[in-house]
C-alpha cells in the first residue's frame, strides 16, 4: 500500500481559520484512492522533527500573539527546512506560515519579527491596525501547464513584497497587497498563500496537484490519479465563481 507522510506544524497554535481542514481534505482524497495518509504533528516542546522524512509539510495561520511565541521556535529548524525544500519535499504554507517563511514581518508598531529567510519576500503591516485585506478571493494559476481558478478567503493585515513567482493572478479580491494583481508565492514544491477557506476545500484540482507531486517524487512515477466524485465541489465552485466573477 502506498503512503504519504504529512507533517502538520503547530496544530494547536496555527489553527485560527479552519486551516486544519486542508489536512482532512488531503487525508480524504488519499484514502479514497487507497493511499495511506500518515499524519504527524509537531508543536513547541515536541521532539525535533527531521523535515526530510516527510513528503508534505503543512502550516496554517494563527492569532498574532501566539504567532510571536512560535516564531522563536521555528527558527531553530531553519537549515533543516531549507534542505528539505531543496530536496523537493512539498511545503503548503497558509497566511501566518506564509509570512514566517519570508525574510521578516514588520508589525504596525515597527517591531520586526525575523522570518526563516527561506524565501526572499517580506511582509509589512499597514500602520492602520483596522485596515486588513478581508474577503472572498479568486485567483488564476497554472498547475502542470493547466490553468485553474482557485477560490478562497483572505484575511490579513500584512502586505507582502518582493515576490519572485506568485501563486496566481488575482481575478477577484486583494492578493499580496491591497488591490494587488498577484497572490502568494509558488515554486514547484512550495505553495505559500493567504487563502483560507480552507484552501483545499473548494479546489480539488489543486489538492490533486499536491498529491501527485508527492507521489511522483516518492515512488519515482508519473501517476494519473483516479478521479473522485466531486459533485459538491463542482456545485460549490460554479456557484461561487458565478457569484464573484459574473455578479450572479
Amino acid at each position, binding site marked *: 500500500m502506498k503512503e504519504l507522510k504529512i507533517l502538520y506544524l503547530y496544530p494547536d497554535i496555527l489553527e*485560527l481559520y479552519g486551516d*486544519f481542514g486542508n489536512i*482532512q481534505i488531503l487525508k*480524504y482524497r488519499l484514502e479514497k484512492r487507497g493511499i495511506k495518509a500518515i499524519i504527524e504533528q509537531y508543536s513547541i516542546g515536541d521532539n525535533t522533527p527531521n523535515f526530510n522524512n516527510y513528503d508534505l509539510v503543512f502550516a496554517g495561520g494563527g*492569532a*498574532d500573539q501566539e504567532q510571536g511565541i512560535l516564531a522563536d521556535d521555528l527558527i531553530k529548524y531553519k537549515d533543516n527546512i531549507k534542505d528539505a525544500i531543496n530536496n523537493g519535499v512539498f511545503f503548503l504554507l497558509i497566511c501566518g506560515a506564509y509570512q514566517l517563511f519570508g525574510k521578516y514581518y514588520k508589525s504596525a508598531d515597527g517591531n520586526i519579527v525575523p522570518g526563516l529567510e527561506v524565501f526572499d519576500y517580506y511582509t509589512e503591516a499597514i500602520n492602520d491596525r483596522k485596515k486588513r485585506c478581508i474577503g472572498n478571493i479568486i485567483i488564476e494559476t497554472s498547475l502542470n501547464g493547466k490553468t485553474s481558478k482557485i477560490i478562497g*478567503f483572505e484575511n490579513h493585515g500584512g502586505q507582502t513584497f518582493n515576490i519572485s513567482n506568485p501563486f496566481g493572478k488575482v481575478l477577484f479580491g486583494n492578493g499580496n497587497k491591497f488591490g494587488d494583481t498577484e497572490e502568494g508565492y509558488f515554486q514547484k514544491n512550495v505553495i505559500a498563500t493567504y487563502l483560507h477557506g*480552507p484552501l483545499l476545500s473548494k479546489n480539488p484540482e489543486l489538492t490533486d496537484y499536491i498529491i501527485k507531486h508527492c507521489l511522483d517524487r516518492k515512488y519515482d512515477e508519473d501517476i494519473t490519479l483516479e478521479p473522485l466524485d466531486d459533485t*459538491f465541489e463542482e*456545485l460549490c465552485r460554479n456557484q461561487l465563481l458565478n457569484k464573484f466573477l459574473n455578479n450572479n
Partner: protein
Amino acid sequence: MKNFFIILAMKILNIALKILGKQGGNFLGKIAFDWNSQIFRYFKINCPIIAVTATNGKTMTNNAIGYVFETAGKKVISNKEGNNMETGILSTLLKHCSLTGKIKADYLVFEVDEGYVPVVFKDLKLDTLIVLDFFRDQLDRNGEVETLILKINEFLKTFNGNLILNSDDPNVSRLGKANPDNENIYYFSVEPYQYATKNMKEAGEGKFCPFCNTRLEYEYYQYSHIGKFECPNCHYGNNEIYKLATNIDLKNRCFEVNGIKYTTKFNSIYNIYNFVAVISCASLYNIDTKIIQKALSNFVLNNGRLEELEIKGIPTIINLAKNPTGSNVSLRILNEDDDEKELLFVLNDNLADGHDVSWIWDIDFSSLNNVSRIITSGTRAYDIAIRIKTSGFDAKKIEPYLNLHEAVKHLYKTDIKKYVIANYTSLQPTRTEILKLK
C-alpha cells in the same frame, strides 16, 4: 432641552412604528444616538443596571435573569429580543422612559455585544457585569478574540461594581485581575459533567496563560476550552468559587448549587453555565432560592435557541449556532441523544454572519451518533456539504439545497426526529419555514 425633544420625537416615532406594525429594533436608538451621542447621560435611573456579555449565551442568560426577577415580582426592563449594541439598548431605554428621561423599574437587565460594553457603560452606571465566555466568532468582522478581551479589560480597570465571571474560561477569568481594588469579583464554575474530557475535543482559545505565557493545564474540559484549568507556573486559575454547580444530570435536566436542586427545561452543558451565572446574579440581589428554583423550572425561550417543537408529530429541535463552539455544543446535544435522527444545517454568509465560512471546519462532525441523513441549505449549502462529506459521513446521505423551502420540504419527507442547526441570519427564516408545516 435638546434631549427632551429627541425623546419626544422618538416617542412619536415609536407610536408611528407601532401603528405600522413594525418592531423598531435598533432604529429609534440609531436616530437618537446620531442626534446626540451623549444622550445616555440624560436618563435618570435609580435602580441597578445588570449586563450580560459573552460570545455565546447572552440572550439565554439575559432573558433568564429577567424572568427570575419578574418571578420575584420585580419590574424589569430588558432588551429581550437581543438588540445588544448601543443603538439597541438606547431604543429600549427610549421606549420605557418618561419625557424627562426618568425610568421606573426595579432592575434594568441588558445583554450587551462584547465590543460595546465600554461604549454603553461610559455614561450609564453599571451595577453588575456578567461575563460568560469568549470564543472565536466571525473573525472577518470582529477580528481576533484577544482584541475584544483587551477592550473589556481596559473598561474594567476602573470598574468597582459586581463582576460575575466564568472561572472555567481562561479568557474570562483573567478579567478578575483587571482592577485589583475591586473587591466585588464573583466566580462561578461547574463540576465535570458526564461527557467532560481530559483533552480538548473542539477548537478553543486561551491555551496559554495570559499573564506568563505558560501553557495552561486542565483538570477537565467540558466543551471547547471551557473547563477547570490552572497555570502550572503562576497558578492563575485557582479562584475562590462563589457558586459551583454540582451533580450535573443532563438527562433529567437538573443540577445542584449549594446542595439545592434546580430543574430546567434544557439539556446542554453550556446552559448549566448560563444558569449558574443567573443563580450567582440573583443571589447577589437576595432573590429567594425557592423563587429562583421555580423560575428556572419554567423558563423557556421560544426563539430558536434550543427550541423544542413538534412538526406534524415529528420531534424537532432548533438551535442557533453562529460559530464553531455554538455548532459543536449543538452537535454534543445531538450526539448525547441515542435516537435515530436527521440533521438540517443551514449556513448563510451574509454581512451579519461574517462572509468567511472557514469556521465550519472547526466543527467536529467526525462521530455523529445515529444520524441517517443530512440536509444542507443556506447561501453556503455546498460548503457545509463538502465539510460534512470530508469528515467521513457518506456523501450519498447528504442533500444540499440552496433554496430553504426545498430543503425543509425534503427534510420532512420522513418522520424521523429532526435536529436543525442554523446560523445567525438563517435562523429566523428557517424557523418560519419549518413552522409553516405545523
